[in-house]
């Protein structure tokens, strides 16, 4: 994982740094910045990149992060529910958040879309949106907590994932449900099975009682109130029940993989 190594030290991973920097810019500057084609060398200079050479520090940090996965799995109580809130406390407007602008969010035609189900399941049939909409749905008003620190309360309605997994005959002794999504650059993310079976983990079709808008992941997102926001997939294309750890978009860049809340 030479890739991770570059990420730990200021200024070394140009791609991420650029992304971080661009995010903090006002819209107009941001556009110009990107189109102008930034000198990455200058960016490196700005950040001063030689704090510690940390191939050894990086190895240690990776190990501790794995250890933290284990600690969090141990702490995870499958019966502990995320706090719920009255609808009056819903954050308005609920923030759009992604590693791209709203303009670049996937535009999916609901009629053509099908959810692909793969891996250790009895029934590998793909599901249309109409078929999914017929499944029993529940509403939750819970707090979305971003890895960045901010949080927002939202209302999500959909089918508990554990009911769907039962329906398709998933092997719930498997380690992960792995989601592949339509976001540009191919977002994906593994969800550990115990979190997947948590009663509040949901295949979400509605936000605030309305069909899930494009900004929040149309046609389907996975709402996991026991995980940080980046582990709540949007624009889901497929789910795979698997024993293998397949990595994830953010997980591979260094965010802690369990990231439970």
């Amino acid at each position, binding site marked *: 994982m030479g890739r991770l190594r570059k*990420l*730990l*030290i*200021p*200024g*070394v*991973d140009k791609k*991420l*740094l650029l992304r*971080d920097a661009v995010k903090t810019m006002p819209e107009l500057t941001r556009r110009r910045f990107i189109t102008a084609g930034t000198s990455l060398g200058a960016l490196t200079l*700005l*950040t*001063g990149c030689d*704090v510690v050479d940390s191939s050894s520090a990086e190895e*240690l*940090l*990776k190990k*501790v*992060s794995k250890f*933290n996965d284990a600690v*969090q799995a141990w*702490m*995870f*109580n499958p019966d*502990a*529910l*995320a*706090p719920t809130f009255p609808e009056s406390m819903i954050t308005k407007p609920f923030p759009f958040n992604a590693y791209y602008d709203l303009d670049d969010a996937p535009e999916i035609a609901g009629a053509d879309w099908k959810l692909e189900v793969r891996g250790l399941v009895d029934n590998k049939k793909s599901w249309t949106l109409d078929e999914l909409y017929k499944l029993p749905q529940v509403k939750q008003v819970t*707090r979305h*907590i*971003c*890895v*960045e*620190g*901010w*949080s927002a309360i939202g209302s999500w309605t959909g089918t508990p994932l554990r009911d769907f997994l039962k329906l398709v005959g998933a092997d719930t002794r498997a380690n992960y449900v792995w989601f592949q999504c339509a976001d540009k650059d191919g977002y994906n993310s593994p969800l550990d099975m115990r979190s997947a079976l948590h009663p509040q983990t949901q295949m979400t079709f509605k936000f605030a009682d309305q069909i899930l808008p494009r900004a929040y992941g149309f046609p389907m997102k996975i709402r996991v*109130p*026991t995980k940080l926001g980046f582990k709540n997939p949007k624009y889901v294309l497929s789910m795979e029940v698997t024993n293998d750890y397949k990595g994830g978009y*953010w997980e591979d*860049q*260094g*965010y*802690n993989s369990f990231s*439970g*809340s």
Partner: protein
Amino acid sequence: MTSLAVNDHQAETAAPAKVIQPVWVRIVHWTNAFAMILMIMSGWQIYNASPLFGFTFSRSITLGGWLGGALLWHFAAMWLLMVNGLTYLALGFATGRFRKKLLPITPGGVIADTKAALTFKLSHDDLSKYNSVQKLLYAGIITVGVVIVLSGLSMWKPVQLHWLVALFGGYDFARYVHFTCMALIVVFLVIHVALALLVPKSLRAMLIGR
């Protein structure tokens, strides 16, 4: 550590032979200093991802380079900080050090010693005895240390430890508590280091024990 001094020379002649800072205190002190600096610097980088106030910390004084790197540092150094902190608390109570060194703290004593400090009349003849201002500051910073760890844990596990988040008045409020404790620790750190440099024998005691 001690506070403002002018008549250091009086103590020099007394040549203290007894151990002022036992070896366990010195080990946990410097381990804590190391862990705390890692936590603060990575914490500033994490703060920058979603600032609570109208400023961010310069990248030159943060650790981790970006949010993901900073989080790795923060959630690694937290173990060092917590294990070391618990060791300190356990030994502090078990050896009676807290009781002997930090108690009693009386309002009268604090006021008198504050006056003495501000008029440069505070004595440092015996570094093994803390004056009232020191007692108050040390007891206070230990409390802040406990609160910053608990508020941090509540933000790390707001579902599993939802009772702890509730104790801090909710997730968003816990962030302010965590930040405020950091600010208090930084202020303490500045004063602490400044005073240690003013009374160098206190620094020596923390390095070699006497």
